[in-house]
C-alpha cells in the first residue's frame, strides 16, 4: 500500500489554515503595498523627466502631492500589515505550543526517560519560534516578492524587451548561488539547533541538581562545560551568519552587474537619442526594483532553510505515538486489587532483558515486598504494575483480567505511587495534596493529612494549608515532604499502592512518623513495597526476592529467614559473611581433592 507523503510545507499550511481569512487580508494589504511601490517610480520619473525640465509647476506640485499620498498610504498599510502578521504569528505559535504540550502529556514515560527535559523545552520554545518567523514574514514575503518580480517583469517587457533580456541575463548566477549555499546553510542550521538543545539540556540538568553540584564543588567544572558548549554554539552561529552574509553580498554584486549592464545599454540609447531621459529613469528604476525581489527571495530562502530544520524537529515530536495505549474497548471497572504476574519478561527498547519469567500472586489487601540487590528489577515491576511500560512477554492480570484491558486512566486513578524522591509543585500545601484528587474538599484534605501524620506540622506553619512551600517543597524537611506525598496518595483512596523506597531517605524520627502513616495508608489496599531496609518489610504478607531480573525466593519473612538464600544474605550481613567463608573453605577443599597443592609461605 503506497503511503501519501505530506510535504512539510503542506503540514505547515495545515497549521496556518484556520487563519486563512487573516492571511487573505494580509496578502491583499501587501499586494496594495506592492502596487503602490510600483507607482512611485513612475511619479518620480514624471517629476524628473518632464515636470522639472519643462518648468511645469502644476505638474510638479501634482507629482509631489502624489508622492506624499503614496508614502502616507504605504505607511498606514504597512502598519496594518504588520499588525495582522503579529496576530497571525502569535496565534500560530500559541496553537502549536498548546498542541505540542498536549501531545507531550500523552507520550509514554519511555520518551521522557530517553530525552533530556532541556531538549524538549528547546524544541517547544526555540523550534516552534522558527515557524513564527516563517509564517509572519517569510511565506508572505516569498509570495509577494514573486508577485512583485513578475509584475515588474511584465512592465519591463512592455516597456523594452531588449533591456529586460539584458536584465535577466544575470539570473542564472543567482540560481548557482542558491545551489551552492543551500545545503551548507541547512546543515549549519541543524547543527545550531542541536547545539542549542544540548545547551538547554545541560542548563536544565545542572539547575535541577544545583545542590549536588555545590556539594561536590562542581560550580567551576559546570561553568567550563557550558562555556565549551557555548563556544561551539558561537562558532556554529558565526559560521552560519558568515555564510548568510556572503550569500547576501554575492546576490547584491550579481544584481549590480545586471544593473550596470542595463545602465550601459540604456545610457547608450539615450546618447544615441533612441530613449528619452524619462524612459531611462523609469527603466533604471524598474530594473533596480526587479533585483530587489530577487534579493528578498534569497533572504527568504535564508530564513526558510533554518526554519525547515526547526519545523522538522517539532514535527518529529508531534509524530511520535505513545507506546502504551488504551485498547478501543478498555474497561473502566473498579478493581479489587488482585495482581498476578505470570512468566513476565521485560526488556527496554534495544536493551538487555531486565525481567525474566517473573511470577507472583498478590491477593486484594495483601502487602507484597520486593527485595533484591540494585538492578534486580524491583522498580521495573512497579513500572509494569502502573503500566508505565508494557511487558515484553507473559501475562499481568488485575482481578483476573489482563492489565491492558483496563484504560490507563481508570487503572491509574485506582493506584497511587509514593517514591523516594518526592516531587512537590510550587504552590501551597493544599494545592499539592489536592493534586491527587482535584475535586477533594478541605475536609478530605485535612483527613488525608491527619492519616499521613502531616496535619500537625502543617498547622504549625504560618499559613497552615495555604503555606507556600517553594519549588519542590524546598522549605520543608525530607520527612515533611514525604508525608505530604503520602497524603496526596491517600486522598485518592487507591486500591493498589506502590511504595518505592518511600522511607529510605529519611532519618529515624521522620521514618517512624512516615512508617505510621504508611501503615494506615496500606490498610485494605494491595500494597507493593520496595525497600532496601529490610526491617521495614518484615510484616509483609509476601516477600519476593529478586536477583538479576529473576525471582529467587518467595515467602514470608519467617519462612525466608530460615532458608539459606539471598534473602537471609541481605537481611543478615554477618551470616552472609560466614556463609562466604564456609563456601570458600568448601571450594578450597574441592581444589585440594582435585590435586591443588598449596605453596608454602615464603
Amino acid at each position, binding site marked *: 500500500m503506497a503511503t501519501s*507523503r505530506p510535504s512539510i510545507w503542506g503540514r505547515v499550511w495545515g497549521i496556518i489554515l484556520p487563519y486563512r481569512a487573516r492571511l487573505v487580508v494580509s496578502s491583499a494589504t501587501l499586494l496594495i503595498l506592492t502596487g503602490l511601490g510600483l507607482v512611485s517610480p513612475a511619479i518620480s520619473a514624471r517629476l524628473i523627466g518632464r515636470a522639472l525640465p519643462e518648468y511645469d509647476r502644476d505638474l510638479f506640485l501634482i507629482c509631489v502631492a502624489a508622492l506624499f499620498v503614496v508614502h502616507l498610504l504605504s505607511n498606514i498599510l504597512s502598519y496594518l500589515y504588520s499588525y495582522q502578521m503579529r496576530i497571525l504569528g502569535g496565534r500560530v505559535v500559541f496553537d502549536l505550543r498548546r498542541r505540542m504540550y498536549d501531545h507531550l502529556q500523552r507520550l509514554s514515560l519511555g520518551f521522557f526517560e530517553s530525552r533530556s527535559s532541556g531538549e524538549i523545552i528547546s524544541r517547544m520554545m526555540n523550534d516552534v519560534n522558527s515557524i513564527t518567523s516563517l509564517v509572519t514574514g517569510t511565506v508572505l514575503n516569498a509570495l509577494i516578492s514573486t508577485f512583485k518580480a513578475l509584475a515588474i517583469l511584465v512592465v519591463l517587457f512592455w516597456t523594452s524587451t531588449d533591456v529586460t533580456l539584458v536584465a535577466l541575463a544575470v539570473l542564472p548566477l543567482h540560481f548557482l548561488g542558491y545551489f551552492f549555499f543551500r545545503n551548507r546553510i541547512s546543515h549549519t542550521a541543524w547543527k545550531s539547533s542541536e547545539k542549542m538543545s544540548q545547551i538547554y539540556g545541560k542548563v536544565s540538568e545542572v539547575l535541577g541538581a544545583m545542590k549536588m553540584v555545590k556539594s561536590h564543588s562542581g560550580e567551576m*567544572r559546570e561553568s567550563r562545560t557550558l562555556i565549551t558548549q557555548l563556544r561551539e554554539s558561537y562558532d556554529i552561529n558565526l559560521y552560519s551568519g558568515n555564510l548568510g552574509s556572503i550569500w547576501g553580498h554575492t546576490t547584491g554584486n550579481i544584481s549590480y552587474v545586471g544593473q550596470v549592464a542595463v545602465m550601459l545599454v540604456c545610457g547608450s540609447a539615450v546618447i544615441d537619442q533612441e530613449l528619452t531621459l524619462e524612459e531611462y529613469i523609469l527603466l533604471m528604476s524598474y530594473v533596480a526594483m526587479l533585483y530587489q525581489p530577487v534579493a528578498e527571495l534569497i533572504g527568504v530562502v535564508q530564513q526558510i532553510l533554518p526554519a525547515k530544520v526547526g519545523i522538522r524537529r517539532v514535527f*518529529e515530536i508531534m509524530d*511520535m505515538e505513545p*507506546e502504551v495505549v488504551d485498547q478501543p474497548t478498555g474497561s473502566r471497572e473498579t478493581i479489587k486489587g488482585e495482581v498476578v504476574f505470570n512468566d513476565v519478561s521485560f526488556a527496554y527498547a534495544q536493551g*538487555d532483558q531486565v525481567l525474566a519469567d517473573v511470577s507472583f500472586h498478590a491477593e486484594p489487601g495483601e502487602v507484597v515486598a520486593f527485595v533484591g540487590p540494585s538492578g534486580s528489577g524491583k522498580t521495573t515491576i512497579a513500572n509494569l504494575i502502573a503500566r508505565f511500560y508494557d511487558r515484553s512477554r507473559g501475562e499481568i492480570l488485575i482481578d483476573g483480567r489482563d492489565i491492558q484491558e483496563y484504560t490507563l486512566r481508570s487503572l491509574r486513578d485506582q493506584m497511587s505511587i509514593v517514591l523516594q524522591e518526592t516531587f512537590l509543585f510550587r504552590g501551597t500545601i493544599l494545592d499539592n495534596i489536592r493534586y491527587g484528587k482535584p475535586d477533594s474538599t478541605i475536609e478530605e484534605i485535612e483527613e488525608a493529612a491527619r492519616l499521613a501524620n502531616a496535619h500537625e506540622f502543617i498547622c504549625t506553619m504560618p499559613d497552615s494549608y495555604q503555606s507556600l512551600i517553594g519549588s519542590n517543597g524546598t522549605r520543608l524537611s525530607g520527612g515533611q515532604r514525604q508525608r505530604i506525598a503520602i497524603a496526596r496518595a491517600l486522598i485518592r483512596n487507591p486500591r493498589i499502592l506502590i511504595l518505592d523506597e518511600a522511607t529510605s531517605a529519611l532519618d529515624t524520627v521522620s521514618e517512624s512518623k512516615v512508617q505510621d502513616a504508611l501503615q494506615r495508608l496500606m490498610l485494605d489496599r494491595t500494597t507493593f513495597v520496595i525497600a532496601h531496609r529490610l526491617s521495614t518489610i518484615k510484616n509483609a504478607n509476601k516477600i519476593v526476592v529478586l536477583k538479576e531480573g529473576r525471582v529467587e525466593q518467595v515467602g514470608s519473612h519467617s519462612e525466608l529467614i530460615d532458608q539459606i538464600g539471598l534473602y537471609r544474605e541481605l537481611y543478615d550481613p554477618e551470616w552472609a559473611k560466614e556463609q562466604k567463608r564456609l563456601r570458600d573453605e568448601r571450594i578450597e577443599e*574441592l*581444589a585440594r581433592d582435585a*590435586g591443588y597443592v598449596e605453596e608454602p609461605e615464603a
Partner: protein
Amino acid sequence: MTAAPKQTAVGSRGVPRLRPTAFDLVAHYEPSAHFKFTRRVRNDFDVLADEYSRSTWLLGRYGGRAVMQTDIEGIGVACRVEIGRLVLRGGSQFASIHSAMQMFREAQDRNLASGPISRIIVHFHKADHRPADREIVRAVFNDVFADKEGDTECAFLAEEKDRLELGRCVEYQTLTTYLREDGHYHSSHRARIDKVQRHLQQEVGRYENHRFFLRTHAPQDGSVPVIDFCYTGESADIRVEAFLEGYTNEKVQFVPRSEYRSETTQFTGLADYERASRRFGKLWIRQADIVRRLLPQQVGVLYLFFNEQMQPELGRNFTWDEIFERQRISNFISRASRNSQTYLDMVLEGLVLDRFIESSGESFRLATGFEDFQHVTFYQLGEFRKRQI
C-alpha cells in the same frame, strides 16, 4: 602548519599543483590534580616550542609555534597543546606533521604536560574527503605512537568534516554480521560474561596473576555461538578454576601463554566481547579508515534495507515509500516512531550524511562498500593504553 599539495592533484607537467593545506593539530593530556603551569614549565615549554616552531604566516591555532593551554577537568588541570602546520610542497607533509606529533610526545616525556597524552585531534579542510592526506597523518601517528606490541593501526573518528580525532580501533565483526547477530558475538552470553566480570572485580586479589578471556566457536547454521571461558598465567591453577566455578558456575580452561600469544585471533577479551555483543547504545563503525558513530535509531533504520532472510539488499534502490512501509511494521523501530514520516526523513538524512546510505532524489540504497563496514570500538590514544582486555 603545512601546506601540502594534494597527492592526487598533479599539474600538466607532472609537477604537483600547489594546494596549500593548513593543519591544526591539538594534543590533550590527561588531567592531574598536582599539575601547575609554573614558571619552570612555561620556560621549558617555550624552549620546546621554539625547537619545533615552523613559520606558517598565520595566526591563532594555525600559528606554527606550539601554544599550551590549560583546562579544568574534574578536580585536575589538563593541558592542551596546539600547533599549526602549513604544507606548501608535496613530499614535505610527512616531515612537517611528524615534527608536530613528535613535539606532543616530547612535551609528555619531558614532564611538561599534566600527564600522558589522552587524545589527539587534527583539523584540516574537508578532512573526511581527503584519504591521501589522512594516509600521511596515519603514517605519522603510527610512527610516533607505536608504543607496544598489539597497538592497532591509527583510525580517524570523524565528528565534523574538517575535524578528525586520532585513535585506535578494536575490530569485532562486519556491520552486517552485527545486525544479523550471526557471528562470534551474541547477546545471549552477556549475562554469563557479566557475572564472571563482576566476580573477577570483586575478588581482584585472588585472580591477579591470571588473565581471563573467551574462546569463541563459530555458530552453526544460524545457531548461537558457543563460548568457553579460558585463562592464562604461569601455569594451570586448580584453585582459580574451582573458585570461578564455585561462584559463577562457569568452567574455565587453562591456555598456556605461548598458545595464547600465537593464536590470539581465537581469543577475545571479556570486555571486548561484552562491548561487541551489546544490542543497545551507539555503535562505532569503521568505513575504511574513518570511524563514525551509528546511533540506535539509525541502526533500526538500517534493518529496513535488509530482506526477510536478514540479508542486506545491496545495490537495490528503495523508494521512500517502500522504506516507510517497512518502517511501519518493523520491530527494530520503536513503536512510538513507526508511523512517523519525519522520523524516517531525519534518520535517513543522518545516514546519508554519514555515508551509510546513498541517495539520489527520492531513492535510497545501502552505501557502496557497506558489506565491508566494520563494527569496532574506537579508543582515544589514552583510553586504548588503559583499556581492559
